[in-house]
């Protein structure tokens, strides 16, 4: 049975934005999983932060939580603690996950909650009209850095590996076929499944040509030390000599957050709780 992935909301991304490709890959991943009966449509929930990426909340027909800037990840942590059976997709931006929300990003990698994290990485704050983010290359001239961005970029892939993410991948929004495939794998993975999705911003930071010329696919997942080595092949700078590896760097099955705390779907496990007078009696001396 075909499911409806469309919403009535008018799309307000810039024409030609690779966010459209991420949206269509996500819709495809969800509908294929539902139509092949691997999941129910109502099980899917998207959480988003604030930024261009966050608009996806309005454009994809799944349950959704449009959170605060940088906080799509902790909201998702709560969702899986409240109902571990939901299929959560966390959409975040690079400013969102790597600047404002970096503490949640690294600690959630350790905690290993079961959801897929898709970071729309355009290496720029776009909805605020073009300022550097933690993945912007040094020297980038933006409105807040007219003399060029003064700091080196961070590498979210090696950081995710360092902090224990149990599924780490990089994809390119333009390669929608591979993106859809990896998104599906991430949703099916039990644990913190992170994809850094390169998504050039046509308005403020168009690195289409740089990335397009340098990407290559490798056969993953790799053993941990090899994955880390592969992760460090590109440091998110605009180094002309760099090659950019694409694919699944690392994958392991490890105890999830929900398993560690033995969480459950509380509202069905305990539809009615009662006042427990015995609890006050325990203070009796």
């Amino acid at each position, binding site marked *: 049975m075909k499911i409806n992935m469309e*919403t009535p*909301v008018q799309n307000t991304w810039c024409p030609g934005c690779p966010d459209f490709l991420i949206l269509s890959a996500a819709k495809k991943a969800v509908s294929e999983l539902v139509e092949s009966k691997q999941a129910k*449509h*109502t*099980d899917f*929930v998207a*959480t988003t932060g*604030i930024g261009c990426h966050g*608009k996806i*909340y*309005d454009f994809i*027909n*799944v*349950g*959704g*939580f*449009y*959170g*605060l800037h940088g*906080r799509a990840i*902790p*909201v*998702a*942590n*709560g*969702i*899986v*603690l*409240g*109902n571990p*059976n*939901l299929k959560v997709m966390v959409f975040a931006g690079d400013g969102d996950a790597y600047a404002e929300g970096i*503490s*949640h990003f690294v*600690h*959630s990698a350790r*905690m290993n909650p079961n959801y897929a994290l898709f970071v729309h990485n355009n290496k720029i704050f776009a909805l605020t009209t073009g300022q550097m983010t933690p993945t912007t290359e040094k020297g980038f001239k933006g409105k807040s850095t007219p003399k060029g961005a003064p700091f080196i970029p961070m590498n979210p892939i090696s950081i995710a590996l360092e902090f224990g993410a149990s599924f780490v991948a990089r994809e390119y929004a333009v390669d929608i076929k591979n993106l859809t495939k990896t998104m599906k794998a991430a949703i099916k993975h039990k644990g913190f499944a992170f994809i850094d999705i390169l998504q050039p911003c046509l308005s403020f930071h168009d690195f289409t040509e740089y990335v397009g010329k340098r990407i290559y696919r490798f056969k993953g997942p790799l053993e941990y030390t090899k994955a880390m080595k592969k992760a460090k092949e590109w440091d998110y700078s605009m180094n002309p000599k760099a090659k950019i590896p694409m694919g699944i760097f690392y994958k392991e099955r490890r105890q999830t957050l929900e398993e560690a*705390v*033995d*969480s459950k*779907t*509380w*509202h*069905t*496990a*305990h*539809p*009615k*709780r*009662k*006042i*427990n*007078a015995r*609890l*006050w*009696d*325990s*203070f*009796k*001396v």
Partner: protein
Amino acid sequence: MEFQITIAGEAGQGIARSADLISRDFVSRGLYVFNYRDYGSLIRGGENFNLLRISNKPVYSNNWKSDFALVFGRFSGHHLKKLNMGGTSIGTLPGVKTSFNTHDMLKKIGAPSISANSILLGALYKAMDQPLNNLMTQMNVFGKHAGINKKAAQLGYDQYGGQVKPISFSKGKGPRYFVSGSEAVAYGAVSSGLDLYLAYPMTPATPVLHLLANLKNQDIRAVQLENEIGVINAALGAGYAGATTMIGTSGGGYALMGEALSLQGMSEIPLVVYMAMRPGPATGIPTYTGQGDMKFVVNGGHGDYSKVVIAPGDPLEAFERTTEAFYLSQKYRVLNVILSDKHLAESNYTFDKKPVVKVKPQRFLTKPGKNFKSYKVTADGVSPRAAAGTSLVRATSYEHDEFGYTTEDRGIANTMIEKRLRKARTLEKAVSKLSPVKTYGTGDNLVISWGSTKGAILDAIKEVKGTKFLQIVYLKPFPSSRVKTLIEKSKNVVIVENSATGQIADLIAENTGHSASKKILKYDGRPFGQKELVAKLRRAFK
């Protein structure tokens, strides 16, 4: 019959444990014990002390002078100056009336140095002329170490040759409950249908995290997360998924949560916050008490939205009011803050009755159909709530239409803002039925206060003739008409608050137009003592 015991020593010497043993013994014999706990921000070394005020009538506060003092630490000599006339002291320091060489005594019976407090406890029982067996019974809590501690207590009892001030009383009737504010909030929350407690450690809220994490036979989870921002956002995520959730913190953590408190207002996901104050600003005096965060909590969170702030005055109320917090939060999809402080959280009180719970825990979850409207416009402003996964349920930080889709349309924005404002009026009506204020005593003199000052005020007004106490339990929605009427009926009005500015006066002025100029304030991190407050009230009402 009333007396007070000081137990003072270095952190790590078993001060709190000793206080607990004595308390439980007297409470088990039908007396009322108030146990004040004073400790610094340190784990070993430095000074800790407990004050046990014990009476055959209910007592809810301490005094600053005692009749007996057990003093064992290097830093505790100052307690010797804080004895009532005829008071006696026992300890290891020079200057105490009866001094023990606990080191040698313990060596003789092969007991570890940690048992020094047991020697002194034994001596105290002799000084009070109390049956040592009662103490021994309480010592069973030490398990396999009970034997050696009983031996030490016997030694202290036998070797005590100082002044004996017999405490005599007849055994009180009926059950007695000995409970701290932290315990009452934690157990009250479980009784209110709690599923998840999320927190990041911060004094003085942490005991609730510990209690819930160690609670057995209850199907709930307490989870420590990465920081306060992670905690509150996760709590809203869990609430969206259908769980009944509480989080806990103190002022600094509450400040970090600020943005997401406002997210609660927009997303309308039920949330209960346990907020235990300590003196600020900033790190302040972390292990002491204060009420200076009240206006911050009442006003916190950007934008216009409804919330509820409840300030229980003692553990019995904390249990009762926690159930109301959950009920209101789930039913009206609002933020509900249980405002406590270190004094209420970490003092132990004795009660002879059980809490009376006026509301039933309920999830207030609907079974949604297709095209569920998370933000349906209703007459009372309350939209039916559904758990994520039961339909395509939406929750959002953006202004939205009834389905939860983002909008910037001015017509829809007005409709939704007004929907949320109607909820404020609905809440006011609901809260008016839950005794949002309480009054005690009669007279033309009116004491107005809120929160943990209740104990000292109740104990003090018995000795200040013609004094009525108005306790404001619901700080938001503010019970304006009740407060206004009582102020207008009274001749003299005085505010009592554990803060430097008397913030409740501003709240009263804002809501009733009455300004209260007389204030009794205390802001050194310590609670009001009973006698101290009697003197201050007499002066204020002169």
